[in-house]
């Protein structure tokens, strides 16, 4: 080896390792406003829900608020039905049905709940509309945020935040109005004579709405909502998703409108990035399905508006399925969907049946345990019972109590009771039986309570009758 063949040693500094802060400040998203078919569709899905939400507490029924969840009294009124805590299994069932229908809809059409009906989306849209009308369009807002503080900027910001707070306050008051009669709540709040719980919760929900729809927005969808994360479990190749069609669009690039882009070897995508500018979660849908995508179809409408201007066919970004993108057709009716629908129909049927046939009466029987039995002078045996009757109906009924299970047993005490709607009464009864009629020391017996004139309102409860061994 001669010296010329040796390579000179060189000092090389190790490559700079870029330090990335793992707690990153989020970048504010400025969405661009766009008109289109799906945005109009959202008006039809969002507005009825909003109107329903704000209007429902104002309806009355029988002299009280029609929909009222009276927590201190533990009575939950929905028009003509009053639910008691004993009815909670029904609420659990209802929530299961709601969750199940969400899964069914997701398997069918992806995240349309998110894009069209989720309160986070609906309220964020309202706040974004207010932002647009106080601070201006996307470019105007970007400029305003970069500009130094001036009177104009202060006025605009104050107007925006005041309008936000106003909507948030209306939302908060309405929410509390479901739990405390809203016709009392509003005047009490404005005369500052409301109780501190009412004030606390109104302030809480006002702030929560303001923070969620004004500031947090997509952070809720991206980091807080579990639905975003488990959606991919429910999707399959035939689920409707918002997708960019790379077969049509690639390779992307700008071109003159008059030119036939295919001769240039270009796809339909002109890389205007409008789809990125309108996206409320700040993603580029051309990168494929992402968990942040809430299926709001703003990018669909944006791209369609550009396709119209370019005189290309619409649908470069559209609601489609993986299957269709691969060249097949979407299978609408598939075993999964059919299964979901059948199970859902069954559950709704069972639930409706239970609601309609709910018996608004409850009976609890407690037997005296300190004196297991009492022997009378004539040799008969007495057992003493405490009965708790709850009339869960909204109107009064007269109830008759009978006992079966022991031949010849009689009751000592009042066996007919009139209870007001919603009344709970504790009463005592003594059951007397002859020793000969009891063959076991411990005999089961059954109390039956029936509403007079309404044989469908009838409950039974089992207890025991003791006699000396």
């Amino acid at each position, binding site marked *: 080896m001669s010296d010329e063949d040796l390579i000179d040693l060189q000092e090389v500094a190790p490559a700079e*390792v870029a*330090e*990335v*802060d*793992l*707690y*990153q*400040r*989020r970048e504010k998203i400025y969405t661009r406003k766009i008109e289109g078919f799906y945005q109009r569709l959202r008006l039809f899905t969002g507005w009825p829900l909003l109107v329903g939400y704000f209007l429902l507490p104002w309806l009355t029924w029988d002299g009280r608020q029609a929909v009222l969840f009276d927590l201190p009294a533990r009575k939950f009124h929905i028009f003509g039905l009053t639910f008691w805590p004993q009815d909670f299994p029904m609420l659990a069932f209802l929530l299961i049905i709601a969750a199940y229908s969400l899964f069914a809809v997701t398997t069918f059409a992806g995240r349309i709940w998110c894009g069209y009906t989720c309160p986070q989306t609906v309220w964020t849209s309202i706040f974004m509309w207010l932002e647009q009308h106080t601070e201006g369009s996307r470019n105007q807002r970007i400029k305003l945020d970069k500009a130094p503080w001036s009177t104009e900027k202060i006025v605009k910001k104050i107007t925006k935040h005041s309008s936000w707070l106003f909507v948030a306050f209306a939302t908060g008051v309405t929410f509390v109005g479901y739990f405390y009669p809203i016709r009392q709540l509003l005047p009490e709040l404005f005369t500052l004579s409301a109780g501190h719980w009412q004030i606390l919760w109104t302030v809480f929900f006002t702030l929560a709405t303001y923070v969620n729809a004004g500031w947090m927005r997509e*952070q809720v969808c991206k*980091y807080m909502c579990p639905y975003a994360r488990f959606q991919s479990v429910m999707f399959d190749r035939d689920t409707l998703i918002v997708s960019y069609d790379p077969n049509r669009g690639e390779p992307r690039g700008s071109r003159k409108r008059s030119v036939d882009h295919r001769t240039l070897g270009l796809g339909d995508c002109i890389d205007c990035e409008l789809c990125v500018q309108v996206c409320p979660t700040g993603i580029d849908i051309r990168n494929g399905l992402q968990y942040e995508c809430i299926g709001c179809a703003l990018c669909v409408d944006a791209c369609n508006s550009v396709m119209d201007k370019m005189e290309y066919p619409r649908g470069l970004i559209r609601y489609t399925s993986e299957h269709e993108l691969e060249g097949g057709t979407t299978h609408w009716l598939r075993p999964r969907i059919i299964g979901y629908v059948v199970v859902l129909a069954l559950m709704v049927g069972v639930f409706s049946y239970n609601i309609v046939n709910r018996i608004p009466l409850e009976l609890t029987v407690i037997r*005296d345990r*300190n*004196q297991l039995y*009492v*022997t009378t*002078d004539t040799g008969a045996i*007495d057992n*003493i*019972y*405490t009965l708790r009757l709850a009339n869960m109906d909204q109107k009064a009924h007269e109830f008759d109590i009978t006992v079966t299970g022991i031949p010849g047993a009689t009751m*000592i*005490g009042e066996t007919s009771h009139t209870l007001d709607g919603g009344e709970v009464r*504790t009463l*005592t*009864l*003594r059951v007397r039986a002859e020793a000969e009629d009891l063959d076991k020391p411990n005999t089961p017996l059954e109390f039956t309570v029936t509403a007079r004139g309404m044989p469908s309102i009838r409950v039974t409860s089992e207890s025991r009758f003791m006699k000396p061994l």
Partner: protein
Amino acid sequence: MASFWSYWVIIITAITFVTVVWVLLANRKDLSQTTDETTGHAHDGIEELDNPLPAWWFYMFVLTVIWGVGYLIIYPGMGNFPGLLGWTSTGQYEREVAAAEERYRDIRDRYLAMPVEEIAADPAVRKMGMRLFSNNCAQCHGADGKGGYGFPNLTDDDWLYGGTPEAIKATLVNGRKAAMPAWRDILGDTGIAEVTQHLLDLNGRDANETQAAAGATHFKTYCVACHGPDGKGNQALGAPNLTNGIWLYGGSEEQIAHTLRAGRNGVMPAFAGTLSEDKIHILTAYVYGLGKQ
């Protein structure tokens, strides 16, 4: 040894806090040297993204640590340290009881000022009375107050010590102690049998006439002092009426004989120490009303 466990808890809690803060801060910097937003390793071909956590999430963690430290300063949690506020669960319970007493005392005091006869039929008094009765009296007198073996029936007109409001209240406040003596040694078996027959006769039941006549003589000697000349009882002494067919300890021949032989010392507890004056007043009204129904 008690302080050992206290230090055990303090040290483990403190170490946990420090560890949590360290984990939070130590993960700020990503040194994985990858540029494609992945963690750099793959399992079965599945890669793992390494996206930054939002800053607001980090600040909320910090907030919870500060909250935790503050909480442990003002509330007990660090071993035996009682916390700056001196909060205890017993203290909270006592405050709740006192608040309830305050709330309900007004109601009961209102009734305390009114005479028993006036309030006995008041539905609110009957409801309150029933609840007090269930808690304090039903164990012996039965949930319906009709009593049992050895426990008087409070719903009839027969009162051992008197059924006036004053008598009922005295029974509740001071209690009662029955003093039926045992006559076995004095009367002997024959005498007991004779008095038993006399009592059956007094109540219009089938009785042996010879024995009953002898029993009547014994009765005049020994029994009328307490039970009165006609056996109709003496409420000042709590001696029952022996002629009305109501037998506290059973009315069969054997049970009556047993009472005579062995005596009875039934006890009604005194409630002066257990129940406040206003509660006793409501109970008196309730029991008085029971007798009237």
